[in-house]
C-alpha cells in the first residue's frame, strides 16, 4: 500500500519534506521500513543511516521493533536541535 513518509530537519533538506513508499498491507516493523525506503529511494539510504535518525509514528517516537501500518503518520526525524 502506498504510504507517505515525512522527513524533518537536515533529512528534509536532503530528501524533501516527504516521499511515498510501498509497504506491505499487513504493515511492517520500523527496521523493515528503513530497509524499504532505502530500497525504493536509493538516495535515502545513506541519509537514513548516517546519523541517529529517530522515527515517529502518529507523532510518538517509537523503537525499531514497533509495527507500522499504512495510513499511520510516519516521520523520520533528524536529531533535534532543541529550542
Amino acid at each position, binding site marked *: 500500500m502506498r504510504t507517505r513518509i515525512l522527513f*524533518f*530537519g537536515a533529512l528534509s533538506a536532503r530528501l524533501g519534506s516527504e516521499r511515498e513508499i510501498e509497504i506491505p498491507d499487513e504493515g511492517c516493523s520500523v527496521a523493515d521500513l528503513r530497509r524499504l525506503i532505502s530500497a525504493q529511494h536509493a538516495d535515502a539510504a545513506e541519509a537514513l543511516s548516517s546519523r541517529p535518525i529517530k522515527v515517529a509514528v502518529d*507523532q510518538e517516537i517509537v523503537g525499531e521493533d514497533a509495527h507500522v501500518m499504512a495510513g499511520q503518520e510516519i*516521520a523520520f526525524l533528524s*536529531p*533535534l*536541535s*532543541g*529550542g
Partner: protein
Amino acid sequence: MACSSRLLSTAIAADRELAGFIQAAAGAGAVVSFCGIARPAAKSGEVVDALHLDHYPGMTERSLQTIADDGYERFDVSDLLVVHRCGTIKPGETIVFVAAASPHRRAAFEAADYLMDRLKTEAVFWKREQGVDGTRWIEPTEGDRADAARWGD
C-alpha cells in the same frame, strides 16, 4: 493561564507577554521571566543573517506543553508560561519567552531555569543558522545537555 504554552510564527512581544503574565498571576509574590534572543553571530564568529526553526506541527506544540507541565508539577509555582517562535527569526528577535510566578522567589527562578534547560535540549525543533556561506544545522551542545542533566530527569 496557570500553565500554558504557545508556538508563534510571528514576533514575540516579550513586554506584552510579561505584562499579561503578571496580571494573570495576581497574588503571586514573585515573577521571573527570561527571553532568549537570536544572536547576530555564530559561535565561530560568522555573521548570522537569520535563524530558521523548523517544527513538526502537533508534536512540537506538545513538546512545549509537556515541558511546561513538568515544570508546573515540579516547583511550587502558581503560573508558568512558555512562548516559542518557529519559522524565520532575525538577529535581535525573541526566540523564546518563559515566565514563572510563585509565592516566593526561589521557586520562580528555578522553574524558569528548568524550563529553559529542558527547552534547549528537548523541544521539537530543527534549527539552522543562515549566513553568507549558506546554512548550518545546529544541535544542542555538551553544555546544553549537561545543563539539562542537572535536573536529573
